[in-house]
């Protein structure tokens, strides 16, 4: 393991410090808790607050998505560990504009508990209404019948996009939650891992894999996947990922989708576009229309190698949300 870091104990603190210093016109730390970051810009009264968060090591997720059109604040956890309720609660207080706050996070035991506890405190102690929506887009992580058990991976990006836009359009708390859930219901992802990441504090690879192997369906913390197999060509990998997605959600000829080919950290853009090329071929053979494409590192796992493919099926409402402009330090859309 080779990293540009100082004391491994301080990586999250130092990253956050660097981040806030790099983008002072976008984001600031709350004095109450240095893991609680909120937009530096004034948000409008009566707008539903969007709060995101999760473990560190997924950058641009999650702190990179605080800004106009996406989230108003983020609670930052340790590496691959949910934030505790403290920063979540502080962010909640800071971004509530009287219309309540929606928490968006991935479906992981830790996040569910910590965000759940924070939501209870916000209600009881602060009298702030909280709505919640969990991303559970990873097809590999549980059978179709148990979608609610699935974990959230790169598809979280679309949930943020949709909910962030809905809040900007003035939707109320329940409506923002509805849109977030609809985005989640319409979103499916499948990932493939080629090489592990290394936790700064242990220096150990997150999983073992041979030079000629790939791991299908692994999680974006390096949790083992559903199947280890020989490394295949980009086209065969894309075939497999898209096939598993399309077996899980009905997308018909003429339907519109947005596509995300997400790098896990150390996969060159070149490889991602080669994968995208095949994804596009498959979809266009089926008459499925790509409304917009995102290719790059959107939610990573430190320096893990590999990628995921995410499709979100669009309706008119989600199309409007996808088109809404965004201005965040790590993601800008005109």
């Amino acid at each position, binding site marked *: 393991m080779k990293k540009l870091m100082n004391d491994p104990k301080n990586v999250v603190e130092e990253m956050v410090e660097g981040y806030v210093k790099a983008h002072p016109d976008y984001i600031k730390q709350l004095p109450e808790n240095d893991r609680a970051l909120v937009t530096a810009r004034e948000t409008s009264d009566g707008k539903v607050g969007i709060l995101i968060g999760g*473990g560190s090591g997924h950058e641009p997720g999650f702190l990179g998505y605080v800004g106009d059109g996406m989230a108003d604040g983020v609670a930052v*956890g340790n590496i691959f*560990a949910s934030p505790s309720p403290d920063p979540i609660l502080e962010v909640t207080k800071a971004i509530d504009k009287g219309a309540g706050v929606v928490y968006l996070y991935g479906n992981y035991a830790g996040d569910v508990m*910590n965000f759940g506890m924070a939501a209870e405190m916000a209600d009881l102690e602060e009298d702030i209404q909280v709505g919640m929506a969990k991303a559970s887009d990873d097809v590999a992580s*549980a059978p179709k019948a148990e979608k609610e058990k699935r974990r959230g991976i790169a598809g979280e990006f679309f949930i943020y996009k949709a909910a962030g836009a809905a809040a900007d359009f003035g939707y109320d708390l329940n409506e923002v939650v509805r849109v977030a859930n609809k985005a989640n219901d319409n979103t499916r992802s499948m990932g493939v891992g080629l090489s592990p990441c290394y936790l700064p*504090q242990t220096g*150990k690879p*997150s999983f073992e894999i041979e030079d000629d192997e790939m791991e299908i369906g692994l999680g974006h*913390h390096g949790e*083992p996947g559903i199947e280890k197999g020989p490394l295949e060509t980009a086209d065969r990998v894309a075939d497999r990922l898209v096939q598993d997605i399309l077996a899980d959600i009905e997308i018909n000829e003429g339907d519109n989708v947005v596509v995300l080919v997400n790098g896990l950290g150390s996969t060159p853009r070149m490889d991602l576009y080669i994968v995208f090329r095949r994804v596009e071929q498959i979809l266009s053979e089926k008459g499925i229309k790509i409304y917009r494409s995102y290719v790059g590192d959107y939610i990573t796992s430190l320096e893990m190698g590999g990628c995921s493919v995410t499709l979100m099926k669009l309706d008119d409402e989600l199309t409007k949300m996808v088109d809404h402009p965004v201005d965040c330090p790590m993601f800008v859309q005109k």
Partner: protein
Amino acid sequence: MEFSAKDFKDFFKAIVTMVEEEKDYLCELDRKLGDGDHGVTMSIGWQAVNEKLNNELLEEEDCAKVSITVGKTFLSAVGSSVGPLYATGFMRGAKVVKGKTVVNDNDLAEYWIAFAKGIKERGQAEVGDKTMIDTLEPFYIALEKAFAETPDFLTAFTKAVSEAKKGMESTKDLVSKKGRSSRLGERSVGAQDPGATSAFFILSTFLDIAKERTATAS
């Protein structure tokens, strides 16, 4: 047996030491099933607790306050899955010994039952899900039963910890259902759950302290 706030603090100190020793092992277990950070998370949390023990808690004589501070500190420092779980455990335990500077056998039994039940309530896992509940549920069932039969804490706790051990070991053969490793399905068989392991280590650390105190007292 009598157990003071100082004894609680010694117990928590002993966990700090234990965690540093077992850190790598706990990470190794988590690497097989999950994201490989369980030892790191435990270490971050217990180091934060240690800081409190060496400062704010130095003069604290209220058992409940010690336990509450430990729980809250741990949670703040780590979040994660185990933050809410262990924090809830220590805070529910604290409720039972509220206002006491010294606790007796009965209090201790109730403390540990509340601890384990609190975690179960927080996590909503069942035995067989391959989580720390596989350690903690057999533990509290045995503790309740044994303490009801013979109200001697050390005897009952000793029995309960041996059930906890069996429970922990049973996770090796389980297909995991909760937490990050649940998607592993059959591939999770053979690996012992990290949380089930750290939970057992906490209990057995307490057992050591309790034995020591009893030995010194008698």
